[in-house]
């Protein structure tokens, strides 16, 4: 006899918080939603780096709105993770102690304004490719958070591409800035989909449980196929000499990815790993008095109301 869980998965129905589910499913879901939430939160840092130096008031207002969206996305996702029985404080602690990871892409520095364009266009573009798939994921609260996030993420990608278009229509130096940003962000962006299917240990189980609906390599190919024409429109060049259209496959072929670099960054030795976590911990510690004061205020108000009653 199959369990209710298996019947629901087979019928393509969503799993909801109080349903029975295998421990492994719960653990996988917590891990995936948590690292997704952590990524949104840490993702504020590389972009926040340019808020004070945005080239115009228009760009500044847009960037603030985008960074605020990332915070919001983190909160939708933490709230989804909490429905599985883990607390917000535990999730914070797991991020601060490095026991849970976030996307390695945020361990690269934002060196010029063009990086803000490249992040919106490529990093958010890669994220959307993955997230559109995740709107159909089997865990209800995660799927609902993804639907909300996808609606907002489209603005992120378009504003990034607009920055790139503006730079490419500008002076030679501005166009060179755009090319330099593409050169640095291209490979890390296509690594965001994770290791190749042959080396991805949990893909098979995740697909059986309806958590993932497409494999890392399928999503990566989809992203590359979409991005090449966008790059041609900008008049920029993707830093991959092996990139070319394959008529037979109906897809672009691309060069070998440096997985050693990928694992180095995942294991904590990327350019900004330590800085990102140190900054996050400091913000958390510096905010302790605010949280304490808010709780003290709430307790006082509560006591006063009781007195009146």
């Amino acid at each position, binding site marked *: 006899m199959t369990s209710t869980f298996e019947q629901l998965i087979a019928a393509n129905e969503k799993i909801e918080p*109080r349903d029975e589910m295998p421990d492994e499913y719960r653990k996988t879901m917590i891990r995936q939603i948590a690292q997704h939430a952590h990524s949104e939160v840490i*993702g504020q840092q590389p972009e926040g780096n340019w808020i004070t130096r945005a080239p115009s008031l228009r760009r500044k207002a847009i960037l603030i709105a985008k960074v605020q969206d990332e915070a919001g996305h983190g909160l939708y996702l933490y*709230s989804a993770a909490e429905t599985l029985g*883990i607390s*917000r404080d*535990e999730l914070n602690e797991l991020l601060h102690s490095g026991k849970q990871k976030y*996307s390695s892409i945020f361990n690269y520095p934002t060196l010029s304004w063009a990086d803000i364009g490249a992040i919106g266009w490529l990093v958010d573009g890669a994220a959307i490719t993955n997230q559109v798939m995740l709107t159909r994921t089997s865990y209800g609260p995660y799927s609902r958070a993804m639907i909300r996030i996808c609606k907002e993420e489209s603005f992120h990608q378009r504003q990034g591409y607009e920055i790139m278009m503006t730079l490419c229509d500008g002076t030679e130096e501005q166009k060179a800035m755009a090319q330099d940003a593409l050169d640095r962000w291209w490979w890390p962006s296509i690594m965001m989909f994770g290791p190749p299917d042959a080396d991805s240990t949990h893909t098979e189980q995740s697909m059986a449980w309806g958590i993932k609906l497409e494999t890392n390599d399928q999503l990566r190919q989809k992203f590359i196929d979409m991005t090449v024409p966008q790059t041609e429109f900008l008049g920029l060049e993707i830093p991959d000499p092996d990139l070319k259209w394959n008529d037979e496959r109906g897809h672009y072929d691309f060069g070998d990815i440096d997985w050693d670099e990928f694992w180095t960054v*995942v294991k904590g030795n990327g350019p900004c790993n330590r800085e990102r976590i140190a900054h996050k911990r400091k913000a958390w510690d510096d905010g302790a008095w605010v949280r304490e004061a*808010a709780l003290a205020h709430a307790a006082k108000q509560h006591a006063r109301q009781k007195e009146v009653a």
Partner: protein
Amino acid sequence: MSYDVPIIEGEAEVTFGGGAGAFPLWEVFVRASRGLNHVHVGSVHAADADAAMQSARDVYTRRNEGVSVWVVPSSQIHASDPHQKDAWFDGDHPYRHPTFYDIPDEVGHM
């Protein structure tokens, strides 16, 4: 933003015990426009109702998603037991639906 962070060899398995965070949890309901019900959209942590309202607005209504917000302490929500689903929501009674009844076409729209 999202991605796939693979498991690193020797990565510690995370254990979790649940338990409440320092700030209580509030469920958030938003009315999209006049004439519609408030609909559950998610939750926020906040010290008190005022702070929960503020946070709910910032987190869930950045793009005119609503004209009204409710917050309710999560601990005050009473829910049906998923294990009792069959007893609570047992089989359909077709005679409760209009299509159960055959009315001749001559009678006209009913």
